[in-house]
């Protein structure tokens, strides 16, 4: 049996004064046919004329992106001294942003791969969207390791390229592990995303009337014609990719966390980092998915496909990961203050909580530990506005968490004589804001030019998609009718 054809039995509860228990809201609002799905989704790309807000957002995004271009140009000409990094604090915003962006990416892969393996059908409406998010996030992340080096034009030395000197990367260095992890992650996410899109690109090819677009989409769809033989291999490949991406996504942030866990700096040297970082990654990732999906479903009027049920589920995932993250904070504090019995660790923790950066620490606790608790209430999970705000708060919190771990630990390590303080410059800010802008631009282009919701997968969720005599057919009908 193909994973696509699974669905669950559900009996809808009586509808009481307009309120619908989201867990019983179907994944697709009733009344849709294969054609209507095709039409609704492909029209966003092919028919619909570009809305005003899109241009507005594009303008804002590109302004920031240009700022990024400027900042990086200056950086290449002047050196990273234009940032605030200093002697004890060799890494600050640069690597903070790197870790944060990578983390963002994780939600995409998680939704598309892990939820796929877990046969969570509700993922189908949002997986491509979040995969795209992954890819663009990893692009943003990738900029920092390259440009944070003193001599960016030599950054390629981190890759294992044969060279006349016969010198290779130093494979014992976590940074090299990073190179492998991140590049693998990017490549496979891209492949996974693209392969997933091929049939839908075929659909666009067949629907558009513009010859140019026909050529473009025809090219991109690789001549997909929906042969059932192709479909079978396609499904296998897709399943395998999902299977591979699952351990991959877990490994990537584990490896990233090893940059610090392998170091000896108090606040870095911690064995709990891999799970801690992964949880944080998923947490921030889902937050960003919400930040993007909530407006998108409204603006493109996709409420039929991205229903309360999705919103609700993502809220639940955030709550869960949020709790894991909070648990990690407690454990970190416990290690530092009580368990380790190591003065450096103890001081590091005290310094975080009461040192020069204490404010940020407590803001971070507020954002990441207190805020998610609201998600216990279903009403809040279903209030998209509140959820939107929470998702943004969480992302701020996660950024602060990375900053606390990376920069604040560095400012005061072993020898009091070399303690310092980090202050960002305008260029730190330009660079970070710039990546946000770049990300926005890429998302907007994606939404406008690619099928942001997988059509064929949605179609399979329709009752009609099951050949007659299918055991679960009846029940599904029932649900649709009742809802």
């Amino acid at each position, binding site marked *: *049996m*193909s994973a*696509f*054809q699974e669905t669950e039995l559900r009996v809808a509860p009586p509808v009481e004064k307009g309120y619908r228990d989201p867990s019983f809201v179907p994944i697709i609002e009733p009344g849709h*046919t*294969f*054609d209507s799905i*095709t039409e609704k989704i492909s029209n966003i790309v092919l028919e619909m004329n570009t809305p005003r807000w899109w241009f507005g957002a594009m303008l804002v995004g590109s302004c920031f992106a240009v700022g990024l271009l400027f900042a990086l140009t200056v950086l290449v000409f002047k050196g990273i001294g234009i940032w605030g990094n200093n002697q004890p604090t060799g890494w600050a915003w640069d690597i903070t942003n790197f870790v944060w962006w990578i983390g963002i990416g994780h939600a995409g892969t998680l939704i598309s791969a892990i939820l796929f393996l877990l046969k969570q059908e509700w993922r189908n409406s949002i997986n491509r969207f979040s995969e795209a998010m992954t890819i663009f996030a990893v692009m943003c992340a990738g900029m920092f390791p390259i440009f944070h080096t003193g001599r960016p034009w030599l950054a390629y030395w981190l890759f*294992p390229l044969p060279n006349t000197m*016969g*010198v*290779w990367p*130093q*494979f*014992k260095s*976590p940074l*090299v592990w990073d190179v*492998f*992890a991140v*590049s*693998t992650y990017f*490549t*496979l996410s891209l*492949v*996974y995303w693209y*392969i997933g899109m091929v*049939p839908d690109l*075929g*659909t666009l090819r*067949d*629907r558009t009337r513009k010859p140019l677009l026909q050529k473009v989409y*025809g*090219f991109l769809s*690789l*001549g*997909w*014609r*929906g*042969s*059932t*033989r*192709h479909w*079978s*291999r*396609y*499904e296998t*490949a897709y399943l*395998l*990719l999902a299977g*591979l*991406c699952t*351990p991959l996504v877990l*490994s990537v942030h584990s*490896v990233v966390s090893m940059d610090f866990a392998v170091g000896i700096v108090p606040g870095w040297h911690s064995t709990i980092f891999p799970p801690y970082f992964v949880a944080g990654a998923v947490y921030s990732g889902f937050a960003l998915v919400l930040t993007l999906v909530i407006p998108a479903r409204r603006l493109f009027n996709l409420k039929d496909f991205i229903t309360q049920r999705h919103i609700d589920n993502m809220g639940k995932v955030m709550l869960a990961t949020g709790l894991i993250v909070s648990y990690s904070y407690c454990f970190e504090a416990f290690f530092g203050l009580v368990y380790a019995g190591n003065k450096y660790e103890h001081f590091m923790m005290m310094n975080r909580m009461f040192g020069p950066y204490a404010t940020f620490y407590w803001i971070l606790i507020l954002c990441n530990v207190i805020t998610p608790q609201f998600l216990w209430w279903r009403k809040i999970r279903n209030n998209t506005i509140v959820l939107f705000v929470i998702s943004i708060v969480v992302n701020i919190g996660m950024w602060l968490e990375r900053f606390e771990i990376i920069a604040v630990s560095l400012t005061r390590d072993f020898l009091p004589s070399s303690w310092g303080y980090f202050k960002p410059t305008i260029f730190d800010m330009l660079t970070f804001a710039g990546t946000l802008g770049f990300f926005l631009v890429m998302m907007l282009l994606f939404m406008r030019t690619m099928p942001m919701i997988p059509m*064929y*997968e949605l*179609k399979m969720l329709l009752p*009609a*998609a099951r*050949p007659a005599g299918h055991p679960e057919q009846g029940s599904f009908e029932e649900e649709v009718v009742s809802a």
Partner: protein
Amino acid sequence: MKHKKEYPIYGVMAEFDSPTAIMLAAQKARDAGYRVMDAYTPFPIEEVSEAVGFQRKHNKVALACLIGGILGGTGGYTLASCAAGVWFPLNIAGRPFIPWPMFIPVTFESTILIAGLSAAIGMLVMNGLPAPYHPVFNVPGFSLATNDRFFLCIEARDPKYDEGAVTEFLNSLNPTEVTRVEG
């Protein structure tokens, strides 16, 4: 060209409007003894692919993935240990030249990378994609194959192929339309 000469006609294609219909049609065609045929659907329908005679055993994608994974893993570890211990051995922090635990991440990542790529590329190659041209595209309305229509094509290469008979047979499956596919 040669192909075209031998089979001026690619086959006969019937269009259906529901998964059930195409499934039944495919099964009937199989019962009728047709072997070389293919179905075109907007989304995968496993029953159909079995009906048109594509068995699980024909699917070699998983094998490609496995081989890729093995090569990737060994490759990754070899690269790391040769670079660190053979081609340019250096005393790094007093560690041995080849400390195996430190090479695990690289090994793991390269395994995943190559495995994934071979799965994806393998799938495309086995599917003969990319294929910019294919006779079935000549069928008017075939563009709906990616929307909401389901097509069954009995190909001219079928030993039992006889255009008249095939057309008749397909019509008997009450399709919405039957068309001759130009080669």
